[in-house]
């Protein structure tokens, strides 16, 4: 039977073309630059240089060590937190949930910056301890600082994931194990944790990827502890001795490493291939006795610690400030300065880039999800696989790839708003596509068939039946994409200029110039913007099913 021509085939080809141009071609550019020297000859000297010079090769090792430590600590912090939240009726549970979402969705480097203001060399707490008690607190810079900042920022990811996993555990499994003499800690490890293993692995991967690619935190707080995203940035845009070919080579190595971790996780997850049919969700118990008190102390203490940086930044933004020195008293002077420093343009850009990228992401995600789920053909699977590529690419590498690809004619896009939007779309699309695909897979095709049999055309069915049914799943993904777009740093730092400056970049620029008051004002605005977006979203959906 000859397949009838339909509009979806055209869409398939359009996507293939778009991906080839904006994803494959830039990737190819990086690869090419890493192995072709200035004279146009093939060489592996960049890779040799990286692996033979401990100064460079240690960055990958450092990144690895700190990221694994961060992943482990987030699990240690997040799993008990999620367990208490899911198995006990904690007072203010909703509050804990909302605040922890706010923590993990804040702009990537604001936490690090705020901790420096608190615990850095001139941080208030450091100074306080030195003046009052004469105690010298340990340095926050380096490994410990990165670990602390990232762990406090990323443990809510584990929490949200584990909360979902715990909710899907059928209560009768818990009862069955109690019935057979397995309770308490033993049950937690031999049943509950085992049942949650796929989610633990998924959360670990997510934290690993985010922490590994995190650029802002080690840049501000890492100092001597050099990680590879910072190294790439230095090699590409640093103040002295940039080497684009070398930066490209490190990028390739980084992509290989993340890809390996990605496949390792997929392989590990396969071992836990089971599903739970959950008829009776877990019944939350009331926390009691000393254990109950400790639970409250743990949950609220952790949340307070994680949320402290954001509050402190907002507080500082209202303090009088002259350059890098905060003075007593409160005023709006920092905000006045911010207005002079492109505040309006930053906000405009942030909003415009955000809205346009988000619209494109949603459109693409719906179409690609439809192609993959309802038109399962080899070409469409290729699109699906390609669309996941950015998942393993750290943001700064996407930035560099785009500069290499579109830095010169015929497609000179660098410095335009277009390239910023392209970067944002590429960065966030995989997440939204995942949630759209998952949503569509859970919708039985019979609903669409009913629509067709009732005389609605294919296009009409897609627009009036399929898309609205997918809306819920996509919206939950979209809001988080919005927040991630608004707080994007790592690709933007390579692509931005004065015209395309965003709130994040303004904040970063102010920090790097030592303009602390100004930085706090920008950071506070950014923090409030993300917080308002999230709270609005949580209030509207009233749902806890957040897909990060």
């Amino acid at each position: 039977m000859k397949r009838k021509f339909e509009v979806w085939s055209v869409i398939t080809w359009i996507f293939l073309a778009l991906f080839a141009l904006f994803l494959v071609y830039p990737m190819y550019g990086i690869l090419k630059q890493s192995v072709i020297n200035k004279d146009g000859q093939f060489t592996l000297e960049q890779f040799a240089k990286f692996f033979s010079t401990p100064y460079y090769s240690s960055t990958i090792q450092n990144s690895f060590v700190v990221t694994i430590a961060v992943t482990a600590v987030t699990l240690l912090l997040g799993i008990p937190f999620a367990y208490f939240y899911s198995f006990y009726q904690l007072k203010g549970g909703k509050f804990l949930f909302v605040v922890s979402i706010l923590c993990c969705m804040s702009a990537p480097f604001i936490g690090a910056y705020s901790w420096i203001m608190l615990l850095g060399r001139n941080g208030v707490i450091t100074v306080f301890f030195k003046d009052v008690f004469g105690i010298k607190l340990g340095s926050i810079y380096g490994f410990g600082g990165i670990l602390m900042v990232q762990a406090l920022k990323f443990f809510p990811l584990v929490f949200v994931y584990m909360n979902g996993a715990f909710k899907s555990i059928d209560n009768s499994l818990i009862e069955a194990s109690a019935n057979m003499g397995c309770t308490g800690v033993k049950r937690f490890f031999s049943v509950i944790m085992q049942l949650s293993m796929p989610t633990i692995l998924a959360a670990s991967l997510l934290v690993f990827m985010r922490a590994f690619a995190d650029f802002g935190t080690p840049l501000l707080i890492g100092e001597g502890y050099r990680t590879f995203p910072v190294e790439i940035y230095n090699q590409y845009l640093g103040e002295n001795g940039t080497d684009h070919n070398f930066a490209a080579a490190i990028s390739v190595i980084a992509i290989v490493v993340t890809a390996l971790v990605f496949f390792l996780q997929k392989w590990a997850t396969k071992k836990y291939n089971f599903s739970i049919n959950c008829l009776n969700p877990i019944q939350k118990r009331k926390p009691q006795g000393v254990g109950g008190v400790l639970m409250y102390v743990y949950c609220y203490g952790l949340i307070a610690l994680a949320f402290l940086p954001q509050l402190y930044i907002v507080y500082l933004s209202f303090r009088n400030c002259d350059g890098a020195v905060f003075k007593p008293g409160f005023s709006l002077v920092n905000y006045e300065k911010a207005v002079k420093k492109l505040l309006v343009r930053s906000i405009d850009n942030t909003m415009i880039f955000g809205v346009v990228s988000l619209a494109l992401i949603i459109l693409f995600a719906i179409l690609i999800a439809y192609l993959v789920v309802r038109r399962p053909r080899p070409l469409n699977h290729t699109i699906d696989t390609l669309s996941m590529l950015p998942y393993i690419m750290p943001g700064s590498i996407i930035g560099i790839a785009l500069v290499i690809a579109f830095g010169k004619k015929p497609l000179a896009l660098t410095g335009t708003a277009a390239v910023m939007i392209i970067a944002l779309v590429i960065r966030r699309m995989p997440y939204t596509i995942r949630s759209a695909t998952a949503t569509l897979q859970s919708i039985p095709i019979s609903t669409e068939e009913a629509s067709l049999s009732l005389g609605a055309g294919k296009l009409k069915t897609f627009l009036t039946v399929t898309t609205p049914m997918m809306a819920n799943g996509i919206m939950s993904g979209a809001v988080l994409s919005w927040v991630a777009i608004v707080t994007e740093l790592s690709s933007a730092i390579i692509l931005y200029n004065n015209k395309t400056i965003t709130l994040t970049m303004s904040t970063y620029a102010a920090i790097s110039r030592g303009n602390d008051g100004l930085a706090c004002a920008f950071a506070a605005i950014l923090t409030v913007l993300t917080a308002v977006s999230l709270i609005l979203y949580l209030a509207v959906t009233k749902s806890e099913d957040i897909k990060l």
Partner: protein
Amino acid sequence: MSVNINIRNAVKRYGKNTVIENLTLSICGGEFFTLLGPSGCGKTTLLRMIAGFNSIEGGDFFFNDTRINDLNPAKRNIGMVFQNYAIFPHMNVRKNVEFGLKNRPFDRKLIHSQADKFLKLMQIDQLADRMPAQLSGGQQQRVALARALCIEPDVLLMDEPLSNLDAKLRVEMRTVIKEIQNSVGITTVYVTHDQEEAMAVSDRIAVMNGGVIQHVGTPKNIYQRPANTFVATFIGRSNMLEGDMTVENGKAVVSLPTGYKAVFDTVAPENLKAQPVTLCARPEELIVETGEGEGLKAVIDSSVFLGLNTHYFVHLLSGERAEIIQESSIDSIIKPGTQVRLRLNTEKANLFTKDGSRNLLTGVDNDLDKEAV
């Protein structure tokens, strides 16, 4: 060594909402006992109180002479089969079955052979290495049962264990369950809302409604001499007719609609007095006859031929509707619109007080009445 279960004045509250108020029940050792009732009647709640998963707000629960109210579920030595089996999806069949043994002081060396014994008993020994996802519903059911029995519990509790299976498998599995229970001889409490299933497996049944036990008895007694009209209508089908009882020559005569008078020999002596009554006739207790004679006058509305039996749906000339089951005969089925007479099998039919709260006949055997003493 089988354990009997004694429940005295049990109370269950959810907040201010009392679900079970003052329930008393004895379950004999080695017996297959079923809690039967419509959904929301409190049967699962009661089962979970026995298991220890629901708190007990009042009363006493005994296993033999041991009060178990405050005993941890893990310490009650109960085997439980859950509605959705609650098989651990991350463990294979053998690990599931061995799970309970590993959590108690049981000789490690014997675990394997003990599990084998019950895997063989449930005929799933060849599936021991499979993961639950690779099992059919019936196989999962067998695993759940093997796992519950493997710890050699004092009491086996089953919460609607067959409700997730398809109709044919349900019939097959209930036979399996009954046979296993017979061979192991363990005290079993079984919860279901399916009355046919309850009849098929149980030694005794407790029919519950609104948190109150209505009738405790053998399946035969509950069907033939239900304690009240709730039991009569919940177990099997019943045609209910209003009537008036008078006593003539020491015999109860019940005047029914359309002028039919039926004589009952089965009324208990203490109930022999003139009073309004509710007659309850099961579809097979009405006999369709044509031509002149005694009986309820009715008109056939429709009929359904089901092979062994033929169902007739009729309305009485006085307006009530009724359903009749007759063994199919070789003659043609009576056509709709035909006027017929319905004769009552007075030996089988039941008479209740007008409000339906009490059966007036002899032979009602409600073990609940014995509890009160």
